[in-house]
């Protein structure tokens, strides 16, 4: 059977058929498909078994690592976000009005307001007629501190089992025993204990962990404007961790203690 294009002499019919025969996809389409298919197949994305590796031990470990990393990152970005809502002493509306509008989580308890451009830590008393607790402002957390915190959270999680940093116990409960802070670092950090190859990383992580906890206690004391407790924590820190990784944060607390209290 002959094709219509070869049979017909009508120009219009021929024009229609030629237009159909010569139709081509836009230039570059084929290359895009080749690239997409090449990349997809190289990564195994089109395979029905593409996600099967998640069922393996390696996959589970990877998932765990990603989950811990994300939890650590969330904790490092907003470590005090869980402190609202359960404190018995709530600030008055006047106190809230004086706080930053960027901090919507101040409705439940004493406010910790990061203040840009403030190098130190300041205690600002609320007007005497309000009867509210003072609003505490702290400087933005240094990034190195955040990293150390995240690292400590990860190390803690790996050591204790799966405990994401965001699931840590809340710090706004009853005050901790100030006289006996949970600092075990000086005794733990002796490198002679045990086999060096096995013990050193554990000792290091325990030290960092204790350091972070102590700084957490400082935050707790600062939030409650408990200068006495804060001073004790700072002193303990300096005694226990002369070369600690959170020195900058602690020195901010120390600077705050050196300032006179605002009436």
């Amino acid at each position: 059977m002959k094709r219509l294009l070869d049979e017909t002499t009508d120009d219009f019919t021929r024009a229609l058929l030629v237009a159909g025969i010569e139709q081509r996809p836009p230039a570059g389409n084929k290359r895009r498909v080749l690239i997409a298919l090449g990349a997809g197949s190289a990564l195994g994305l089109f395979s029905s078994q593409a996600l099967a590796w998640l069922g393996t031990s390696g996959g589970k470990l990877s998932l765990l690592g990603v989950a811990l990393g994300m939890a650590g990152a969330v904790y490092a970005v907003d470590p005090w976000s869980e402190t609202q809502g359960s404190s018995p002493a709530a600030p008055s509306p006047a106190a809230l009005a004086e706080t930053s509008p960027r901090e919507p989580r101040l409705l439940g308890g004493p406010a910790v307001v990061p203040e840009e451009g403030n190098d130190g830590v300041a205690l600002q008393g609320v007007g005497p007629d309000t009867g509210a607790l003072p609003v505490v402002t702290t400087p933005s957390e240094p990034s190195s501190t955040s990293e150390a915190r995240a690292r400590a959270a990860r190390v803690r999680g790996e050591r204790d089992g799966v405990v994401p940093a965001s699931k840590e116990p809340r710090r706004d409960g009853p005050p901790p025993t100030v006289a006996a802070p949970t600092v075990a670092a000086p005794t733990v950090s002796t490198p002679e204990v045990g086999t060096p190859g096995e013990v050193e990383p554990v000792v290091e992580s325990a030290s960092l962990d204790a350091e972070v906890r102590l700084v957490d206690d400082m935050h707790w004391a600062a939030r409650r404007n408990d200068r006495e407790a804060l001073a004790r924590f700072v002193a303990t820190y300096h005694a226990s961790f002369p070369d600690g990784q959170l020195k900058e944060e602690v020195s901010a607390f120390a600077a705050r203690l050196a300032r006179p209290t605002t009436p």
Partner: protein
Amino acid sequence: MPPSALRHLVKEHYDFIWRLLSRLNVTTPEVDDAAQQVFMVLVSREGLVIKPGSERAFLYGVALRVAKEFRRKAQNALNHISPDPDVLIDRAPDLEAVAERSQARRQLDRILEQMPENLKEAFILFELEDMSVPEIAELVGIPTGTVASRLRRARALFQKAVAELQARREGGES
């Protein structure tokens, strides 16, 4: 499927599949995606072996299913539009020729849209894709006599539509 074989199939059959999809009432914005989806089948199916020489038939079958799926989606979204000839044309230096070809394609698409699916399929594969009757029979999975019969009916419809179109044009000019 090894990457070299995949590349070869895309180079050989992409244009055919793309044209086919655009004539199977897949909307213009979707044709590229539909064509890509056809070839994705080749890499997503583990242990897929295509008999040598029947690659086009295999891709054709996949393209029919993909086109059906895309048409259904388009109908659900109530946004079905005819293929836009301005997008379907290849770039030529002569603007007048481009405009004429664009118009011719639009008219061809309108004629094809009016044909029943089975006749349109035979017409496209024989007249536009240069396939023989036995090839089409194998591809579609019907006897050669049926293909020839469909082709005759499709041609008759096509020529009737062309004659009507010409009459309209002449009527409009006079």
